[in-house]
């Protein structure tokens, strides 16, 4: 029997207006992903600035926000990183109530596996650093790993045996689309214009100060312009002659068909390059490392997936009969020290948020908070102050290759 129209659920309420651009805004945010939306939200909530447009060249949260593996953690090595990622994790813990919207934040814990003696030493060092920064972190021996995640193959008779793992119990996953929609709904309630299908084609500067943007939907004047465009930031910065220490790479991920609950936590392995969680609906969500070459094509090479699957199958023999449902690629902007760039630029009233590489999702509320502060006050927040553009000249790098979990 075919269902009648009235048997189907009601069409949901719209969460935000599909706004048309006005001629002028106090703040124009370029990029309607998680970072752009969170920034707009905290500009309104914390600083009372609501005359804001968020410009998105495609559909809202349809870039990297729709393409990531949704892992949230704060177990980074250096104090600077701990500061910004842990501030973000604290916001995640109350975000659902704050946004009054379900985001399915699940603190199911994250294991970062160690596969050799040096991995073990580096991992323990990171655990101790985390503990000194007040971040929950533990070192687990292989038998303890098996208790947290029984489907991990802890046999010593594999090519890359599990010698143990770091464990952050407060880490987890959230439903990425719901996160974006929750922020978008609150932005809309503040009167912020979320403008889709609006690509920035030029940035106007007069007397060293930014004055507006040119877009596929006309010119928009702006008191301040804040970039939040991830992999495409180099392209935008080039419009004002700003060269950045960024390289954009494809980063691939995939999901399996829906399975019964089988995977209770998140498992990441830097050495063999796969990271896996099980989505609320049941898909196994698996991420790979970045493709080696620069790219903007939102796809990558098959051999990366092949290696990722080989690693997954050795770690999780139980996945052997799962079918792959779909694959995709995002474009991540990597920096030489695997840390982001958030702050001021040589152009007055033009702000920069980029270089998150493979790990921007977990930072969404934290960077939104800090970036909003930076834009509203013209000064970095405590948490983003170390992540300046000029650290590549001063040498004050925040080298997080070891904790980035995906080599980039």
């Amino acid at each position, binding site marked *: 029997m075919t269902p009648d129209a009235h048997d189907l659920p009601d069409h949901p309420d719209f969460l935000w207006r599909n706004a048309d651009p006005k001629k002028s805004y106090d703040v124009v945010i370029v990029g309607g992903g998680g970072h752009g939306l969170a920034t707009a939200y905290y500009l309104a909530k914390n600083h009372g600035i609501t005359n804001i447009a968020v410009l998105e060249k495609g559909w809202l949260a349809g870039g990297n926000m729709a393409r990531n593996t949704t892992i949230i953690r704060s177990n980074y090595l250096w104090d600077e990183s701990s500061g910004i990622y842990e501030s973000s994790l604290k916001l995640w813990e109350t975000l659902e109530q704050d946004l009054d919207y379900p985001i399915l934040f699940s603190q199911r814990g994250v294991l970062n596996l160690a596969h050799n003696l040096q991995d073990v030493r580096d991992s323990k060092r990171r655990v101790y650093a985390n503990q000194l920064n007040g971040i929950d972190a533990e070192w687990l021996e292989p038998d303890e790993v098996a208790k947290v995640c029984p489907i991990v193959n802890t046999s010593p008779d594999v090519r890359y045996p599990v010698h143990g793992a770091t464990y952050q119990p407060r880490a987890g996953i959230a439903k990425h689309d719901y996160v974006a929609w929750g922020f978008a709904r609150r932005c809309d309630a503040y009167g912020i214009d979320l403008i889709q299908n609006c690509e920035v084609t030029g940035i106007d500067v007069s007397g060293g100060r930014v004055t507006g943007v040119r877009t596929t939907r006309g010119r928009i004047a702006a008191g301040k312009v804040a970039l939040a465009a991830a992999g495409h930031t180099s392209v935008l910065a080039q419009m004002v002659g700003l*060269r950045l220490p960024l390289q954009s790479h494809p980063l691939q991920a995939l999901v399996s068909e829906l399975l019964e609950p089988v995977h209770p936590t998140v498992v990441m392995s830097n050495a063999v390059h796969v990271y896996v969680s099980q989505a609320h609906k049941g898909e196994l969500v698996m991420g790979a490392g970045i493709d080696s070459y620069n790219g903007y094509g939102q796809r990558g090479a098959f051999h990366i997936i092949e290696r990722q699957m080989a690693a997954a199958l050795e770690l999780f023999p139980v996945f052997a009969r799962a079918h792959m449902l779909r694959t995709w690629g995002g474009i991540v902007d990597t920096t030489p020290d695997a840390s982001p760039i958030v702050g001021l630029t040589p152009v007055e009233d033009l702000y920069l948020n980029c270089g998150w590489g493979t790990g921007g999702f977990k930072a969404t509320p934290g960077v939104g908070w800090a970036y909003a502060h930076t834009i509203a006050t013209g000064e970095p927040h405590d948490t983003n102050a170390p992540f300046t553009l000029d650290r*590549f000249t001063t040498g004050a790098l925040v080298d997080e290759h070891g904790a980035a979990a995906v080599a980039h």
Partner: protein
Amino acid sequence: MQLIPCPWCGPREETEFHYGGQAHVEHPADPHALDDEQWAQYVFFRDNPKGPFAERWAHTAGCRRWFNAVRDTVSYEFLTVYPVGPPNPLGTGTRERQEATA
């Protein structure tokens, strides 16, 4: 996986190659003359264009030789490959050019 045309071996599978980043980044002729900003540009800053990009590749699983290529970073298509030495066919990205346009 795509075929990459090694200038010496001909078309071979992508997995045989290693990526070397931007081509034509020249070591400073007079390193002592550089200030911190110029050193930062040399060490950390690279072009990141959306479109044709001159870059280095090594045929590590074949002849093990380095070569240059112009590749489109959107389609990933190799537009041309050429030996190390000749100038950048795009005329972009060299230190001389950056200084000339600065």
